[in-house]
């Protein structure tokens, strides 16, 4: 028991460390890629079978060998639910020993999701344990922890300043904030509250990964075996968290329900239970709970049908419906490196790890802006913060490659959109104020200012071929509410794996370099007078530099 407790604590800790380091450390998506349903269903939806599914394959192989050890030892969702059970479950005496056939429900959830995945629609994020638990810790728990840290650092600031503790003085924790966080919380409140019904309710009845592993662990090599010493006292039946032991014949168990927690082994007064590969103590196998064939077929068809209805919705953005009269894509700005939209929505498992990894917190889960199929998918929200043109965190941590890893040399070419100016909102255009904040913050030099005879101050124009859509301008625009400069998904470069962003951008005529190529180094800069303007800006009207006036 001690071994199991430590293993689980360690796995949960590693999971949390990887999540906290998402985007910065290697293999931060390891746990997500171990989830059999998550990887299996995403792979099915993407029609892709590559080495990135290897961790899940290993987990599935382990089920053949030793049953659902992933559920019992590794899964952070299982561990979290167990902790919640400890806090919320009724006293053990009141628990009824059950041996419920409703354990079948999880198979139907799996086949429902598989039916949808066959149609190229992913519903995996509603049920795959690692998608759910990553969202829970990443989008709900992590911000709360950082907020508390921020409060602590702020409270300590006066002391740190007095004692001149520089690191503490200037430590600024900017806690991330997430849309839909409350929904995730409510969802988990329901999952945890199910402890009142039975321990590990989720794992028993609902988890599609549990179902997939159950199919593989009907007769694992290492499994629960009961010696003839068993006197059928039934204590193991009452303590089995998975209700895997037959109340009428405790020497028998449904191995596909067993998570190898070995509670029965440690609690048995007769020491009659052992988990071993030793066939000598084997008794006859109990018939398994099989998902009924008719219901499997039905739930699979139901999944496919639901997917089909979703795909024909008007607000769908999953397919490029280029015929006349169709609604064009929603104004969702995807993170840099996101696959073309249909592929992206198939591949994205909505784990939220990219959002937890995003250092500027611009990546947010969307509700229905991207249609039903885009639920919880990540979007760049420049008004919240810009998307740093140096950063590749989201792609580095995406478990399915829905957001590709971008080589740092390619990063500045991964255009995610184009800024447009709403002149009627703009301080310079409409309110005749001196404002050039968009130009000041633009790392791509994508704004140019024009001095017009009818306006007192220069007014901005976007140079579309230089704009990468990073959103520095929209974020910093001093106009309240609706910014006067807004990033749209126009001209975003969405590529399939293996294609070059630099090549794609250049072939479309974009000049997306943070330091423009034609910028001369200082040593080579011509000394004035007569110095030319090197960056291709329109020359200023003679006589007046921007911001200067006639004097007085």
């Amino acid at each position, binding site marked *: 028991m001690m071994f199991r407790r430590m293993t689980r604590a360690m796995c949960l800790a590693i999971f949390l460390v990887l999540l906290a380091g998402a985007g910065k450390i290697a293999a931060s998506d390891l746990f997500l890629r171990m989830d059999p349903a998550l990887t299996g269903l995403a792979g099915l939806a993407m029609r892709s079978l590559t080495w990135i599914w290897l961790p899940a394959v290993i987990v599935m192989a382990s089920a053949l060998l030793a049953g659902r050890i992933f559920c019992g030892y590794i899964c952070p969702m299982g561990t979290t639910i167990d902790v919640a059970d400890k806090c919320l479950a009724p006293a053990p005496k009141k628990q009824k020993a059950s041996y419920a056939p409703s354990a079948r429900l999880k198979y139907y959830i799996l086949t429902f999701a598989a039916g949808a995945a066959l149609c190229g629609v992913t519903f995996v994020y509603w049920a795959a344990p690692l998608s759910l638990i990553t969202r829970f810790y990443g989008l709900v728990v992590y911000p709360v922890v950082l907020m508390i840290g921020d409060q602590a650092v702020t409270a300590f600031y006066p002391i740190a300043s007095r004692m001149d503790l520089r690191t503490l003085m200037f430590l600024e924790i900017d806690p991330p904030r997430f849309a839909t966080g409350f929904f995730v919380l409510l969802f988990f409140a329901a999952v945890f509250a199910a402890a009142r019904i039975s321990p590990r309710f989720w794992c028993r009845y609902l988890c599609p990964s549990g179902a997939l592993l159950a199919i593989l662990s009907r007769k694992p090599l290492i499994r629960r075996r009961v010696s003839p010493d068993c006197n059928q006292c039934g204590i193991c039946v009452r303590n089995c968290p998975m209700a895997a032991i037959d109340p009428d014949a405790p020497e028998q168990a449904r191995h596909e329900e067993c998570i190898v927690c070995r509670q029965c082994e440690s609690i048995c007064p007769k020491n009659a239970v052992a988990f071993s590969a030793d066939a000598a103590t084997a008794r006859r196998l109990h018939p398994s709970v099989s998902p009924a064939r008719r219901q499997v077929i039905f739930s699979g068809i139901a999944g496919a049908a639901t997917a089909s209805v979703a795909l024909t919705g008007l607000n769908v953005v999953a397919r490029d419906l280029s015929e006349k009269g169709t609604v064009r894509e929603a104004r969702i700005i995807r993170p840099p490196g996101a696959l073309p939209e249909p592929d992206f929505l198939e591949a994205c498992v909505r784990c939220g790890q990219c959002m937890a990894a995003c250092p500027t917190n611009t990546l947010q889960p969307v509700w229905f802006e991207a249609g039903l199929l885009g639920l919880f998918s990540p979007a760049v929200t420049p008004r919240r913060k810009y998307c740093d043109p140096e950063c590749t965190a989201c792609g580095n941590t995406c478990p399915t490659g829905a957001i590709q890893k971008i080589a740092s040399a390619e990063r500045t070419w991964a255009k995610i959109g184009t800024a447009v100016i709403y002149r009627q909102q703009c301080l310079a255009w409409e309110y005749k104020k001196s404002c050039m904040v968009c130009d000041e*913050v633009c790392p791509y030099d994508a704004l140019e200012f024009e001095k017009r005879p009818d306006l007192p101050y220069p007014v901005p124009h976007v140079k579309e071929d230089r704009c990468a859509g990073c959103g520095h301008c929209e974020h910093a625009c001093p106009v309240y509410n609706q910014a006067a400069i807004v990033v749209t998904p126009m001209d975003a470069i969405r590529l399939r794996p293996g294609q070059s962003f630099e090549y794609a951008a250049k072939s479309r005529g974009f000049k997306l370099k943070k330091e423009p190529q034609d910028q001369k180094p*200082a040593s080579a800069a011509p000394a004035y007078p007569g110095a030319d303007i090197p960056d291709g800006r329109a020359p200023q009207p003679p006589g007046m*530099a921007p911001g*200067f006036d006639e*004097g007085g």
Partner: protein
Amino acid sequence: MKSLIKPIDRRTFLKQMRGLACFAGASMLVPASLWAQNKMPDLAVVNGEIEPAVKKAVDMLGGMSRFVKTGSRVVIKPNMSFASGPERAANTHPLVVKALAQLCRQAGAGRVLVLDNPLAPAEQCIENSGIGAACSAIEKDMAQTVSDPSRFREVEISGAKSLKQTDVMREVLNADVLIAAPQAKSHSGAGVSLSMKGMMGLISNRRVMHRLDLHESIVDLASLLTPDLVVVDASRVLSSGGPGGPGTVLTPKTIIASADMVAADAYTVSSFEWYGSRYSADQIKHIRMAHQRGLGRMDIDKLKIGRATV
């Protein structure tokens, strides 16, 4: 935030400001009496290599000890708001900041901080500007960025015309001496970005200044945050395309120092070409307004200018 400000805070602050003013006034008097014929210039203009030029310029104004006393808490405000290197001339040259920090240390400063509230990501600014590395050669963690609103405190600006209140970095309010070390550069909104415009790097909400009259609110802010010493880095001048560049970079290799922020800015404006043309200082609205309000002098032809080459 307003409700959080207790009267005692403001009183304390005003007291500090009064103390600062007396201190600055006194320190003006002492060297003046020592120099028999008041040889000290209002403006020091030095050409040459950066570090010796900064030291020479400060020396000509009476040395750093005129501004920094033993135990003084000093804040140096350079431009380090952009994630670009010195060649682009959007940030102050790291050697200017380093030379100033060294002079402060030699003058016996108790604490020297190099602070800015940057536009670009903080780490990239500290690193790419070279200021972080240059300063850590003197003292670890000297150059810092401050952005979290909790590290600022609301302050009323008495006599302000546009910007009647703002949030100033606490570390600046706690400091005894403020040194402005602006990069000489053009600015498409304010004409130029020099010591006065640079004070926007010490407050939290800058956006509001663009909705107000930018020039007028720059003067309001300068009346609150008046540096004791200004050292303009014109080793390179971003003559066009400012504030962030890229643009035409001139290389006059000049350092301009003064205890009068308006004079320093005015001299810088009239000394270099902006967008290929020459301008006089009064063609920058905020310099003109600051002069009219008596924050300093833009009539540089009436000031005593010391020149040197190192």
